[in-house]
């Protein structure tokens, strides 16, 4: 079983990386690009026997307390 956790900066928070990438894409002629935001993701391999609901709880807990700082980041996740 795998969980994927996607972490991104809250939309109100400045994303200097995304901004810089956006600028250079535009300078390189990718005129159709209107905005870029950067995030990170984690692919977490979980013990197979784990029930879906337990997995969900575990993943939410670690995403909230370890993988993100809720002050500036938010996350989504999927379990596959």
């Amino acid at each position, binding site marked *: 079983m795998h969980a994927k956790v996607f972490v991104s900066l809250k939309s109100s928070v400045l994303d200097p990386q995304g901004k810089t990438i956006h600028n250079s894409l535009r300078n390189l002629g990718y005129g159709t690009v209107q905005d870029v935001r950067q995030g990170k993701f984690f692919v977490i391999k979980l013990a197979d026997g784990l029930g879906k609901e337990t997995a969900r709880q575990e993943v939410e807990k670690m995403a909230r307390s370890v993988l993100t700082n809720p*002050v*500036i980041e938010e996350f989504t996740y999927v379990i596959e």
Partner: protein
Amino acid sequence: MIIETEITPEIVKQHGLTDEEYDRIVRILGRYPTLTELGIFSVMWSEHCSYKSSKPHLRRLPTGGSKVIQGPGENAGIVDIGDDYAIAFKIESHNHPSFVEPFQGAATGVGGILRDIFTMGARPIAAMNSLRFGPLDKVQNRHIMEGVVAGIAAYGNCFGVPTVGGEVVFDECYSLNPLVNAFALGIFKKDRIFYGKACGVGNPVIYVGSKTGRDGIHGATMASAEFDEESESKRPNVQVGDPFMEKLLLEACLEAMKTSAIVGIQDMGAAGLTCSTCEMGGRAGTGIEIDLQFVPQRETGMSPYEIMLSESQERMLLVAERGREDEVIRIFKKWEIDAVVIGEVTADGLLRVKDCGVVVAEIPNLALTEEAPVYNRPLLKPAVTSSSTPHPALGTSSLQSADWGDVLMHFLSSPNLGSREWVFRQYDHMVRTNTVQVPSADAAVIRVKKTDKALAMTLDGNGRYCRQNPRRGAAISVAESCRNLVCVGAEPLAATNCLNFGNPEKPEIMWQFSEVIDGMAEACRLFATPITGGNVSFYNETLGEGISPTPVIGMVGLIQPVTLVRGSWFVHESDLVALLGDPVGIDEEYEDAVTNAFQWCLTRPELSDPYTSWVNRLPCPPIDLKKEAKVQKTCLEAIHGGLLISAHDCSDGGLVVALAEMTFSHLRKPAIGATIELPEGYRLENLLFAEYQSRILVTLGEKDLPKLQELAGRNSVTLLPLGTVGGNRLRVNWGPRVLIEKEVAEMEKVWKNSLTRFLVDSI
């Protein structure tokens, strides 16, 4: 004026304003304020911006001197270093943000202090930081420390300023209140200084840098309130730093300043656009009118209130000569930075803010700056200031059999005494190719290209001493910072300070503050090191728990010629080791406490950090400032006379810890031991480990001893030959007894592991 929101007492309270302050606003305006105006007043009258509690005390600090070009009141102090060069330096706190989001909080702290320096036209050439955390055995403290150090590294390294020094202290009182004080120093030609003044009616006001977003709205008021569980909800205040943008801003600003088209410039720090406009107008006695529709914005639908109070980073406000704005804007465009005329300087002394032509705020600049409220808050000396309750003297007999070598090894492994390499290895401390003395010497040393000068700098604070005796503790911080400079061969020039305290509304805290100022003022006068600027951080309290009063001194000195620079370690076999200054000070209470604290500690093998446990049971050590000055004078004269090979300050951990530190390897210089004969006639544990001030360990060639003796005699300073450098062990003898005999390699290993044993494998 359109009043869009009715100002209820509830709203006033949310803005951290008292009823009296609100009445004063209404009197100043002659009407009720708009919400935007209320926001502007609230940030400018916050503790952080107005210094309303500290101002009456700060006035007692010495701030002038023949070399001071600019004292407190500008973005940074400026000192003349000769040969047409001047330096600008300052320290600032970013404590609260670093607690909430360690990486970004610390990073933006570095960004802020760098802007304070280059806004004056100086190119930053060195940075330092003073850090305080809770003990590392707690995960949360490790997490904060890792984030803070990484954040400082990320910002400073990318910007391209060498982070050359600082200090790190661990104490329980900083667990929920970490301190992050960032220092920066820049250099420029004396005739190229820029000030934050909006001169010249009709001159355009130009906004440059990052776009404005809803960042840190109310950061200034956040830094002026205690923390509680509710602060969770205040969290969106945290800002993200963009060091790349700051680097471009630096280059563009310095290039624009060369055109002579710039009249005044100031960074937008705390309270952003509000603070920079009213302060620039206030200093020049002019007014400023801006229209917010021209302000570059990152988000849509921002209200005037939000735009005025935003604390988005990497922004500057400048005033250019009328007619030359295009010249300035072109330079910023070259660096791909927004630069927009948003208003002009007026004659009426008002800050007038329009939004698409409609006035949304109109306030006299001076009402926001110089005429902001000032409070003489009540002071109260706490009943017991000394927490080390005196123990009955147990006599020294039970210490007779102590294994002092073992004690030394334990002390060297303390996070409070061990190597800081884990920290400074993450900082680029060599960029700009000026770093003569890398971190780990008593002070950092930066050469000044195109001259034969070098600058030495250090940060020193001691919350532990100040908790016991705020006045003496502050004086010791000044003395120690000067001593650190002297040890590397520098003459102290001037200082900046960062005053970290608890809640000023508590009379005991205000008393501590007042005492600290007096102690600092006395010492700074004596050492002729004026305070040219600084920062006050109050409300370092979480859930009612406050920090020890923690004033941090940033001291800067001059070495000329640069070849005089000295290290703080043993260099050659057979050099002599000697102590400048009295081996122990005179203070019976302290002396007894040292003995008692050892007896307490040595019977507790379970202590995880015996040094910290021991030292926490001691009162503030004594200091005789006049004697201190003589010791420092002697050391400096000896270095200038070519008598000394190295010099090292004896401070935390006392004489033996200082000796051990001198044995360690440094860059390509291998570790090297020494044999030391301690003088008899003193209480042993005092001689070995007590933290008496006014002592400097020096090494010299044997042939220079008579000259040094003569010099010390002339200055009435004790000079005590202690032994000889050589071998691969540190041997400390006392009469017939061998007290300590340790392999240098073994000592160096535990010393180097003091932080890494906690920090290596965690994120």
